[in-house]
């Protein structure tokens, strides 16, 4: 459908004004709290190039190991680098990795999940592969893949995607299997719709709620797992500070300069908490089982 088509379509405005779902979301405390927490972190990370007091890698040896103070709210590290800048820039990288994992999950999780849920012949093979991947503990699998590929940002993204795509695919498969049996899908078939139209127009749009919820949790797990991989030295090169790398670097000085690990740790915890609250709120509002009216 072309853009002109879309614009000329009446009802578009009605679609963009907040519907009952959005209003219900804004009344959900968990969602609003999560949105505030995660939103704050995301905006700060986004604005890092403009609000960082210094370059995150600028060293100043005479300011080594400064405790948090008015001048250095989050202190400085062993090379005198300003932790405010490093945490802000680190957030950029962590969120970027999380976002990539979410996007790859959205694409591959949806494609594989929809294929498995809709085409019965593909269900067995695809889900056995998913089972095999899910039989490994998530972090262990990620470590294995990251170790095989060598440390880099791309490695982390790939490793985490391999870990989480099967889970997303499973969620989507389950929803597709439920929606596939709905009367309106049968009605669409009776109106002459083929597999493609059925899947993309009638089934997938009705699977969005669980997908969105799942992706919000994947985002949180990806940020956590990225920290673990980086902490273990399998993440991005140490010059680019992600939160996991900051914690790894601070570990050696945890007795003398605890702020080096506490600050990025709190950043991770805030983000993950925010995303989880967000996901809980989304699930409460969007989960069809709780939809009594409508």
């Amino acid at each position, binding site marked *: 459908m072309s853009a002109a*088509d879309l614009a*000329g*379509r*009446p*009802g578009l405005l*009605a679609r963009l004004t907040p519907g009952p779902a959005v209003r219900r979301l804004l009344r959900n405390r968990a969602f609003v709290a999560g949105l505030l927490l995660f939103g704050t972190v995301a905006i700060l990370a986004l604005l890092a190039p403009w609000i960082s007091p210094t370059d995150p890698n600028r060293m100043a040896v005479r300011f080594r190991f400064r405790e948090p103070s008015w001048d250095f709210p989050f202190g400085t590290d062993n090379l005198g680098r300003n932790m405010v800048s490093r945490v802000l820039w680190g957030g950029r990288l962590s969120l970027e990795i999380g976002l990539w994992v979410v996007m790859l999950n959205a694409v591959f999780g949806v494609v594989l999940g929809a294929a498995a849920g809709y085409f*019965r012949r593909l269900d067995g093979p695809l889900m056995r592969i998913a089972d095999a991947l899910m039989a490994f503990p998530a972090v262990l699998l990620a470590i294995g893949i990251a170790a095989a590929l060598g440390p880099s940002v791309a490695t982390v993204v790939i490793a985490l995607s391999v870990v989480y795509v099967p889970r997303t695919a499973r969620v989507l498969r389950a929803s597709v299997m439920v929606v596939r049996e*709905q*009367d*309106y899908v*049968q*009605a*669409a*078939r*009776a*109106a*002459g*719709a*083929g597999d493609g*139209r059925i899947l993309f*127009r*009638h089934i997938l*749009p*009705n699977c969005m709620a669980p997908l969105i919820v799942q992706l919000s949790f994947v985002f949180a797990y990806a940020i956590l797992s990225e920290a673990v991989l980086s902490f273990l030295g399998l993440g991005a090169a140490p010059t680019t500070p992600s939160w996991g790398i900051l914690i790894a670097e601070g570990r050696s000085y945890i007795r003398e300069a605890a702020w080096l690990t506490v600050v990025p740790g709190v950043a991770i915890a805030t983000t993950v908490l925010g995303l989880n609250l967000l996901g809980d709120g989304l699930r409460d509002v969007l989960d069809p089982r709780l939809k009594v009216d*409508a």
Partner: protein
Amino acid sequence: MTPPLLSAPLLSAPLLSVRDLTVTFRAEGRTQAAVDRVGFDVAAGEVLGIVGESGSGKSVTALAVMGLLPANGRVASGEILFEGTDLLRLPARKMRDLRGRRIGMIFQEPMTSLNPVFTIGDQIVETIVHHERLGRRAARERAVDMLARVGIPSARRRLDDYPHQMSGGMRQRVMIAMALACSPRLLLADEPTTALDVTIQAQLLDLLNDLRREFGMAVVVITHNMGVIAEFADRVAVFYAGRVAEEAPVEPLFDRPAHPYTRGLLASTPRLDADAERLVTIPGAMPNIAAPPPGCRFAPRCGVKVEACEADRPPLVAVGDGHRAACIRAGEAAA
């Protein structure tokens, strides 16, 4: 309703001719026939009513005609001729093209038969655009026209409503508008009014009746409600346990039912004019299709059975003009 001219539609080839249709289902490793060598004809413009209890195979027959049997069901034998072509031999692509364009279908549950995430206008337009070379704007105009024709007030405004903004009766009207948007020759209506309350049922039947005249289409209406049959159908096929028990024009069927099952069915329908204390019921239950009784499937519940009933499947025998019954004693009963 005046009795239809029976001979006229029978002269030309029927629009739909189902012959010897057997549909089997695989469940827990066993194959069982939900529909067993069923046959009937539908002439152009005619309304055929199919009555029967749940599990008698009436819905399965409709789904077989649409080519929409569930994954574990398949047509084991028979022919489904629509306008002379056997639908069972049609490639999937051609069959898809036929659905919604030449054959429309409406379902029992108006509350769940519309996609909740799109406006009703989108859904009608989608069907039209899919089948005809028509721009979206023209398709929208057609959709407005269709909604108006099925009696939806301020159709243009309702076009952008979502299904949840409409009542069950209104949604069923939308389903009808969608099914008729491409002027099909045949409409399959599977329990179209069962889920609606009684006043709405009557309105919808009137509507369907007007529309089928207007569009000159044939209708197969599937129901367990004799009232719907009496009001709407020209001819009736009574299904029992996957077989046709009796087939007749409406009036002879109600006046002179030839099959004991049909008689039981009619006797168990409540009547306002009769002063009955309790309803008559047919003793027993429909046989398990996985292990049907030999011979006549109604025999175990039949009050007039003789020994021969349990031996062979009774053939459909003519007992009147266009009136056939699968009962070896049909001749005596009708006389």
